[in-house]
């Protein structure tokens, strides 16, 4: 019973990680950038929804605005910090710019909203209801989180495989140069990818805030790092990989915690990660490593 409760808990966390990991993975798949500012998009989403709920509008408006706001922010970040470096920029300089953006967002948030921790009205978004299923308590929030995460992922999969834009995204990630030659507008596809990834992170952000109802300038760092790990574990660049990686990290954490090793959680999760990578060097779903000479 306890194990089942832990599994639900792990799935809830995992679906949040998976949503965030998707953004990492999609962006990486296309421009090979480890977008460290992605975690802080979650923080911005938290503040946006917090502010909108405070005005008394319907919580769903807040959710939509958070998603749109995150997407716009990501597009802005892409256009202002990454694009100007040009197409030939070394990957590490993009990475450093991403770190710069991350610090900028954190410190701007502190300047605007103060360093104080704000409470997040989780109950306004998903009411606190607990179902007892065969002696196990499951909260509505858990169910809603898992359901909305899974449906977002299903939507993404449809988008990628059934629409022209989605096909273009795949094409760009496969071979940017060739895609360009085939008439794909690479810049707008990358912009679109950033927007989608951040939009998913926006959903993740709301779900994260419902699970852990406080908002602070540094709150994005931890889920960002975990999601990054999840993306790599799944095979960075792979969309199904990010989903699997996210769920795997969430479940690992819950299981390690329930085994009474909670103070070792991060260490053990990373150790598992290393072992998995040693066995499968490109994660669960990563592309094979065969290289042409």
């Amino acid at each position: 019973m306890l194990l089942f409760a832990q599994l639900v808990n792990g799935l809830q966390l995992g679906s949040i990680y998976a949503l965030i990991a998707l953004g990492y993975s999609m962006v990486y798949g296309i421009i090979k950038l480890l977008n460290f500012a992605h975690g802080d998009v979650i923080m911005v989403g938290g503040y946006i929804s917090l502010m909108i709920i405070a005005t008394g509008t319907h919580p769903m408006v807040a959710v939509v605005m958070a998603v749109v706001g995150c997407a716009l922010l990501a597009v802005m970040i892409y256009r202002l910090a990454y694009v100007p470096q040009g197409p030939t920029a070394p990957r590490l300089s993009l990475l450093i710019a991403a770190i710069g953006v991350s610090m900028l967002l954190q410190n701007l948030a502190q300047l605007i909203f103060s360093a104080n921790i704000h409470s997040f009205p989780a109950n306004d978004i998903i009411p606190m209801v607990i179902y007892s299923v065969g002696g196990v308590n499951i909260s509505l929030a858990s169910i809603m989180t898992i359901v909305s995460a899974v449906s977002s992922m299903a939507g993404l999969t449809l988008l990628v495989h059934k629409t022209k834009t989605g096909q273009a995204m795949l094409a760009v990630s496969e071979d940017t140069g060739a895609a360009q030659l085939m008439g794909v507008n690479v810049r707008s596809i990358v912009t679109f990818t950033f927007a989608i990834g951040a939009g998913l992170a926006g959903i993740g952000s709301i779900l994260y805030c419902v699970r852990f109802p406080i908002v602070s300038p540094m709150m994005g760092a931890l889920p960002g790092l975990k999601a990054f790990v999840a993306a790599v574990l799944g095979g960075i660049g792979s969309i199904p990989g990010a989903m699997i990686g996210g769920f795997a990290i969430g479940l690992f954490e819950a299981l390690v915690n329930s085994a009474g090793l909670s103070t070792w959680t991060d260490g053990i999760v990373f150790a598992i990660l290393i072992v998995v990578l040693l066995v499968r060097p490109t994660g669960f779903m990563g592309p094979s490593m065969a290289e042409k000479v």
Partner: protein
Amino acid sequence: MKEFRIPMPARYGINLALIAMFLITGNGVMTSGMLSRAQGAIVIEVGIFIILAVSLNVVAGYLGQLPLGHAGFMAVGAYSAAIFWRSDVLSGVPSIIGGLLVAGLMAAIFGIIIGIPALRLKGDYLAIITLGFGEIIRVVIINLPQITGGTPGLLNIPRHTNFLLLYVCVIITCAVIHMMMKSRHGRAILSLRENEIAAESCGVKTTYYKVMAFSLSAFFAGVAGAFYAGTLGMLTPGPFNFMKSINILVMVVLGGMGSMMGSVIAASILTALPLLMQGLNDYRLIIYALMLIIVMIFKPSGLMGTYDFSLSRILEKAGNWMMTRGDKKGGVA
């Protein structure tokens, strides 16, 4: 016309004389009270971060990997040295040197352990191994309070860091890494960065050189950790976090990947920055972040690119210039 070349022994002579001059003047300035206390503290901090950045450059710049766990090696070194110094196994100068060596060796052992997964992993997958390692080290330190003092930390560590010792080690670090990179082994490491498959097919032992680069990098990070412990006199696991690793990486990239001079300059500037920007108060980090982005937009290869400073080369150029001028003058006369 014959080009002006400084002969090898003279080059060594010039460099050694310069180093000696730097150390003597530096030590003089530090002890004379010409610097304010904060400036003195920053000089020490700068030295530590130069070692960290230059050593990280081996893996990030020369080997071309993305290491995200340098603070982990630093932590291993810091704790090893602290425990060694506190244990009073040796005393006096041998103890100080011993602590530095223990710190470096312990970190190097961990470097080898981390380097081995490099057998199978590439690129960002290797990056996450180093990140994971950095986090694991911190969790282990927190959970072994009998040895490491746990979260409250280790106190009363002898404060052995001083200018002369630190900067001698800074110079040794730079010299060893410089000579290493100019040697056959260094060229092999560089070849891995350029094209691993081609290098391997030319007979470069990829695993050997990767592990070598990792352990060399880790060794000096460990030494820097020892100096860190010896400066603070206390250690807590908190500062050895992911952000510390990132800060060191920022120094390397900002300075220019693979440019030792760049690492030195960037480490100095970024470490001194909080002091220089003290008047900006709580806006400091916003400006710092903006500067990172701006530098990366306008100078994506870092401040120094891959340029490396060489005094002999400048002297030679100056010599050549003088000679041409002399020739011309001679012509006119």
